[in-house]
């Protein structure tokens, strides 16, 4: 095995040769990079060769096994690769639910055939995936889902509706939870199924939110025929797969907020700066005492949360089990983001009421829609109420 520094110089050399200079430090679009798929969108023309070269070298999924298109890197090497990307301000060659969600799931639960079929296409960015979990009548109580999968020989015939299927309108395949046994206990009759969205009977429509357009879609299945071989893990055992994936998703959500909050701590007082602009105050104490105290409270919340995330990570780095504090990340991060976005609108005052121009600038409209969008943070990915139930039960040991 080469030493880690050998690896660093190898990968550096490869990056110097293959990564287009043109994309260093570019502003990524709303979705944040290459998502691949049959109908890819490029934030920059050179994002395409970047994906292709990285895929060829296994660097779209650096730590996946080489046999499935990954890079076969060990954790230390993967970290070096990330560091070298960051140092060059290079975007990831590929992102999306394939890499983040279904890929790891297949690596853990998939059959050999499934891995050989799907993982290389994910690594090459050929197939874009989306997730089909929630249904109109199954939100917090996900296990009550009713999308039917009726057996017909070597096929399931799938009928039902999935909601909150992000980017379904741009995706090629969907991994979905379906009810394969209506007579079993609710968690025990569910199958985790891979469905080609090009199949007859699949239709997708976007879901506009109170904040405007969104990646969310409603995806309907009307007698869609899916090979039984597309069930991941055992038939009727999909809940096990789903739970593993859900836990993963919740951590991701907390991470997103957690990291960004942490960074904020060191960036001065952006809220106070915003207030100075709207209150016309250059220096000294902010003239609106009530706003000033709310800003301070919000900053204290952010900082206390950031320190708690840090405490958890420091403990993890030191090899400790995750402490009870990690159970609060999702609920606190999302509730805090709601309060913060609401406070930003209040700071803007009347200028915070705009839906679109004229009379409101781009930043104001983004801020106001950001506040509206944030209302959903405490609903998606496990409601705050469910999070509090979990804390009460698992951490505090309170009885049912």
């Amino acid at each position, binding site marked *: 095995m080469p030493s880690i520094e050998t690896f660093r110089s190898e990968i550096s050399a490869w990056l110097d040769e293959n990564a287009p200079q043109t994309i260093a430090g570019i502003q990524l679009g709303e979705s944040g990079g290459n998502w691949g798929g049959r109908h890819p969108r490029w934030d920059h023309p050179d994002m395409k060769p970047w994906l292709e070269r990285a895929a060829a070298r296994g660097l779209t999924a650096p730590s996946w096994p080489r046999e499935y298109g990954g890079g076969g890197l060990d954790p230390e090497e993967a970290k070096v690769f990330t560091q070298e990307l960051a140092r060059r301000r290079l975007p990831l060659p590929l992102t999306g639910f394939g890499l983040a969600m279904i890929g790891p799931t297949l690596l853990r639960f998939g059959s050999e055939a499934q891995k050989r079929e799907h993982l290389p296409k994910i690594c090459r960015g050929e197939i874009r995936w989306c997730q089909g979990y*929630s249904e*109109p*009548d*199954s*939100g*917090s*109580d996900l296990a*009550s889902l009713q999308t039917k999968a009726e057996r017909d020989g070597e096929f399931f015939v799938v009928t039902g509706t999935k*909601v*909150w299927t992000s980017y379904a309108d741009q995706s090629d395949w969907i991994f979905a939870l379906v009810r394969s046994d209506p007579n079993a206990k609710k968690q025990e009759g569910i199958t985790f199924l891979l469905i080609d969205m090009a199949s007859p009977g699949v239709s997708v429509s976007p*879901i*506009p*939110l*109170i904040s*405007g357009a969104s990646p969310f879609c409603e995806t309907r299945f009307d007698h869609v025929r899916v090979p039984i071989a597309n069930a991941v893990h055992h038939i009727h055992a999909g809940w096990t797969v789903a739970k593993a994936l859900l836990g993963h998703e919740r951590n991701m959500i907390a991470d997103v907020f957690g990291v960004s909050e942490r960074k904020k701590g060191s960036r001065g007082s952006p809220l106070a700066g915003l207030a100075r602009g*709207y*209150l*016309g105050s250059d220096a000294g104490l902010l003239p*609106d005492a*009530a*706003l000033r105290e709310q800003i301070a409270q919000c900053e204290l919340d952010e900082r206390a949360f950031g320190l708690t995330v840090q405490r958890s990570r420091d403990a993890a780095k030191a090899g400790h089990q995750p402490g009870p504090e990690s159970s609060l990340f999702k609920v606190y991060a999302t509730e805090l983001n*709601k309060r913060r976005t609401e406070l930003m*609108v*209040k700071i803007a*005052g*009347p*200028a*915070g*009421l*705009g*839906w*679109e*121009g*004229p*009379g*409101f600038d781009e930043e104001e409209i983004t801020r*106001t829609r950001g506040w*509206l969008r944030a*209302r*959903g943070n*405490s*609903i*998606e990915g496990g*409601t*705050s*109420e469910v999070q*509090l139930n979990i804390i009460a039960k698992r951490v505090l040991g309170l009885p049912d």
Partner: protein
Amino acid sequence: MQLILTEDQELLAKTAADFAAERSPVSRMRQLRDRKDPDGFSRALWKEMAELGWLGIPFPESVGGAGMGLAELAVVLEALGRKLAPEPVLPCVLLAGQALLLGGSDAQKSRWLPPLVAGEKLIALGFQEPRSRYDLRRVATKAERAGEGWRLAGEKIQVEAGASADAIIVSARTAGAERDAAGITLFLVPRDAKGLEIVRQHRIDSRNAALVKLAGVTVTAADVVGTLGAGGDLLESVVDRATVGLCAEMLGSMSEAFERTLDYMKQRIQFGVPIGSFQALKHRAAACFIEIELARSTVMAAARAVDAGDAEAAKLVSLAKARCSDAGVLVGNESVQLHGGIGMTDEHEIGFYLKRARVAEMTFGDAAFHRDRWARLSGY
């Protein structure tokens, strides 16, 4: 001051509730929004409201009004608020209309109030500017002498009903600096005045609002509304009245949003039971109920105090607006959260209540502004 509805008020409330339910479902507001209606409201419905006598409620019979007060208009506005009816009662009847009633010359009143009451003309009031926030007396718009008349230059923002108004009353500075309390005068500017530019704005509540730009608009001395330099006091009285009306509307909106949420809590099944059976949600619903009941008492008190010219009226207006602002936002937020994912969709109507609650909160001063005003008026 009796905090109950009189029989006449009960009757009016019933009529207004029936009207709102039949003629103004929330879907109507959605259609106006989706088709980008330039008025943002229905002129036909406005005319119907006029025929029902509602636009004349707070005006004397001499101009075609009913000679009633805010207590009566409040019950109508509450009913309209329940269905988020976007017709411009607040900006036309209360803001501009009351400005003319309290400050206008006889000529102004007889020219503008009868057609306003009859639903034939719309007047708006522009009092907010890019830097004014909630301060009515922060006015940068300038009025300079121009012969016998005045030349106006400046900008008013978020002028409600401004995009469709036949005339706009604006505050302008005839003396003093931008933040001085005195030296403000109101002027009535007809829509066709040269140099007047009106641009429709789009806020989250989709209602009619406009940027009003005054690029050297010339008006005559007869266009001054009220006493020269005393427009700040007039504005404050007028906005207090409009605030009571807004609070009544907010009360209606939050009551309806809450009732819809309660219904949803009774119907939505998760984990095999209605979500309304979860105690944590019950207690939150009870907390909303309490805030709405308290808000109702304060709105009734404020309306009656203003009608009676009570010395405490301004304090009670601030009490009502502070509570309605906080309660409205609480109920709006809880309504979306308790509806869950469906509440986040544009397709569902509950989001409209959240958006309107936010606009209403930040109109005429938010809760913190009115707590501060309460404290000032209480001498501390």
